[in-house]
């Protein structure tokens, strides 16, 4: 596989090194400023809770995503495109906003408990370990659906035709076509979600009902913000990275490449799923998934609309800054990710390059921001660099998502057309232009949408660097909430979600414009 170990691999290695420097280098910078470092009993219990919660949430998200994405592939119904697009919404939300939306449905005075009250049932409490899982699944289940859906769509129509010609029923199609696809897609999706959950702290703490639901990230926050214990922060961050490395390694062992070969991109049609039992099953799955996701979103939108007139003028320049930062980080992230994918497909050191690309998922943005601050401060005023640094960090933080989405498709393309291209001596930029980009256009569009939206919603390091004239929209939402202005904050959040969504939609559409379906 050592073909083309030339410029492509070198560029990929450079990107991987850059990402590793940004994540591990900043950790090192924090560690070097530390005086002592120790891992207390409270940290061990936080570690246990973090891993358990992340494992459960990732298992549930990915497990539920299989029937949901399967139903979405098999069925055509009005509004299907909208459902798929809205699937992108939850993980674009600022955490506080999403939590308030969830509570409007599942909370003590939420829709469900009010219905229970009318029916004379005793109320249920969301607060506790089950609430933590619910919150994490709300954020990550839609992402899992989109990842698995891409896998489903990657099964060439010709194989399904062949299966139909051979008289395969649903079971046989599952065994011969769907199962291999799942074995390729699920481990990556699982790891991505496991790592996202690993670094969360506001959802577990708020919905967990108290200090039992303490994650490593809270420990980092406490160490950096309150105790100024840089050593402890660095240790906890290192523990997160270690977990990341183990998870990526395990997933790479579990994932098997599929051997479907190339197709002609025909419209996929399913002949094996016309029975009424399957139709009913798919309908129920779809309705439950949509209800679970759409109700909280609808509550957020309702509150937001009421708050729109309350918004102060400062949200508009902040919104503009956020959009600019998002566009720059998307461009950076896409260029870096496609380079990484090419280097991974090219062979040498693939595992290392892929792991480096996944590192940012396990990075604590607070440690990263602090590390950058320590590195930048002696040379330049941090405020001057606030926006470029934010764009760079957002690009790096979103890269694992882009990588998980683009890499499987990239591998397919290389498996199907790699040898032909090699024999035509189609290498380097020409290969990118004539083979990779046209084939990957839809997935690059979708990934750009995700990255742009993530970059819009992410507080990341901006809070550490910016001053009042550089605030981005999420920062303004946070400031409004901190000043009693909850309705205005709800309005600004809706604006944020609307803008993230618009960016996402434009990128996603742009990618699909020339696609067959």
């Amino acid at each position: 596989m050592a073909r083309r170990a030339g410029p492509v691999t070198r560029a990929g290695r450079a990107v991987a090194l850059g990402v590793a420097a940004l994540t591990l280098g900043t950790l090192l910078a924090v560690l070097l400023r530390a005086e002592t470092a120790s891992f207390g009993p409270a940290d061990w219990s936080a570690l246990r809770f973090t891993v358990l919660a992340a494992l459960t949430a990732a298992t549930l998200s990915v497990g539920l995503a299989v029937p949901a994405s399967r139903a979405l592939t098999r069925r055509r119904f009005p509004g299907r495109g909208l459902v798929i697009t809205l699937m992108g919404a939850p993980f674009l939300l600022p955490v506080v906003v999403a939590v308030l939306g969830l509570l409007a449905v599942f909370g003590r005075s939420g829709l469900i408990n009010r219905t229970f009250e009318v029916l004379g049932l005793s109320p249920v409490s969301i607060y506790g370990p089950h609430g933590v899982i619910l919150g994490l699944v709300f954020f990550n289940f839609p992402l899992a659906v989109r990842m698995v859906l891409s896998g489903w769509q990657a099964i060439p129509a010709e194989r399904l035709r062949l299966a139909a010609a051979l008289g395969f029923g649903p079971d046989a199609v599952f065994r011969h076509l769907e199962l291999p696809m799942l074995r390729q897609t699920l481990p990556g999706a699982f790891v991505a979600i496991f790592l996202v959950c690993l670094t969360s702290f506001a959802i577990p703490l708020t919905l967990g009902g108290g200090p039992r639901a303490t994650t490593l990230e809270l420990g980092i926050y406490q160490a950096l913000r309150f105790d100024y214990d840089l050593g402890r922060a660095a240790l906890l961050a290192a523990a997160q990275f270690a977990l990341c490395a183990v998870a990526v390694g395990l997933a790479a062992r579990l994932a098997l490449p599929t051997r479907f070969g190339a197709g002609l991109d025909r419209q996929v049609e399913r002949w094996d799923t016309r029975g009424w039992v399957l139709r009913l099953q798919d309908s129920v799955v779809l309705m439950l998934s949509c209800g679970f996701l759409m109700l909280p979103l609808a509550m957020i939108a309702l509150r937001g609309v009421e708050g729109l007139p309350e918004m102060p003028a400062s949200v508009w320049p902040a919104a503009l800054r956020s959009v600019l930062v998002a566009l720059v980080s998307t461009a950076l992230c896409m260029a870096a990710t496609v380079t990484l994918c090419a280097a991974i497909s090219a062979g040498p050191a693939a595992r290392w390059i892929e792991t480096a690309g996944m590192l940012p998922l396990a990075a604590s943005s607070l440690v990263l921001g602090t590390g950058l601050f320590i590195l930048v401060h002696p040379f330049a005023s941090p405020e001057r660099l606030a926006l470029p640094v934010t764009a760079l960090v957002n690009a790096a933080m979103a890269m694992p998502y882009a990588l998980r989405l683009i890499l499987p498709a990239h591998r397919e393309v290389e498996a199907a057309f790699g040898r032909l291209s090699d024999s035509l001596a189609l290498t380097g930029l020409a290969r990118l232009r004539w083979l990779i980009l046209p084939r990957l256009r839809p997935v690059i569009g979708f990934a750009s949408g995700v990255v742009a939206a993530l970059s819009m919603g992410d507080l990341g390091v901006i809070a550490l660097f910016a001053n009042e004239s550089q605030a981005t929209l999420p920062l303004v939402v946070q400031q409004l909430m901190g000043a009693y202005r909850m309705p205005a904050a709800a309005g600004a959040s809706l604006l944020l979600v609307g803008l993230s969504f618009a960016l996402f939609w434009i990128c996603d559409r742009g990618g699909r414009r020339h696609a067959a379906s």
Partner: protein
Amino acid sequence: MNASILAAGILTIATMAMAETPVLTVLTYDSFTAEWGPGPAIEKAFEAECGCDLKFVTAGDGAAVLARLKLEGTRSDADVVLGLDTNLTADAAATGLFAPHGQTVATNLPVAFNDPLFLPFDWGWFAFVYDKAKVPTPPKSFEDLAASSLKIVIEDPRSSTPGLGLLMWVKAAYGDRAPEIWAALADNIVTVTPGWSEAYGLFLNGEADMVLSYTTSPAYHLIAEKDDSKAAAAFDEGNYLQIEVAGKLASSPHQELADKFLAFMLTESFQGAIPETNWMYPAVTPKDGLPKGFETLVIPSKSLLLPANEAQALRAPSIEEWRAALAR
């Protein structure tokens, strides 16, 4: 990218034009400088009399301000740090970065407060805020609260200043009985949030009957929203104080200007902006008194405040007590 080049150009020209006027940099928390915070009015008033340029640099909250200062150390560009509270001052003093302010000002604080390094600019009592219609008879003490079936939201002392204030409140009021009080409160606590805004948001959305905030919180609803449904509970054992302070840095090249700012901080133009932007009590009552609406606020019969050194020493063991009592 043209826009940013242009912006950089304008910035350079602007910097050159201001080269003669000295710049006083104040490090503070970000809600202070927000459009709706006290910052803009204060900047205008001070610049009118100092012949200087007042520049704010911000970090998230009081704790973040201190963390940022420690990261910057003696290389800090800041001349004045504004927005630490009494739970952080011992820690801040121990950095050795602050210089004595050398000023004596008569303040209206309910306790004696004399610190050679820090001057208070506003203060408030922590209190549980509730909706008068939903809680007709509010509890009169922590024990009352623990015995009731009222649901409360509190902030985490590991990540928020009000959360730490509550911890000190229970410690100051009950001493060694604190773990017992926390254990009794456990079934009242709906949840613990990372910061004040999440807790207050949950309360406003009806997730809890009471929320840990300030006695001045109802003034916001009354004055800004014309809503008199909220009130704060005064406890018989006393309510804990939060005093917000400022100090100047020894490394500052603008010592005189920094002194001028600290003196200005306790004058009418600064203090008058505080009640309706920071929603706290100003440290010096404006000559026209407090804004209308503040007279409706509850005044606790007793004010609690642990000395800064004691608060610092108690922090780690109290957090451990709290965690152990609530993790059961």
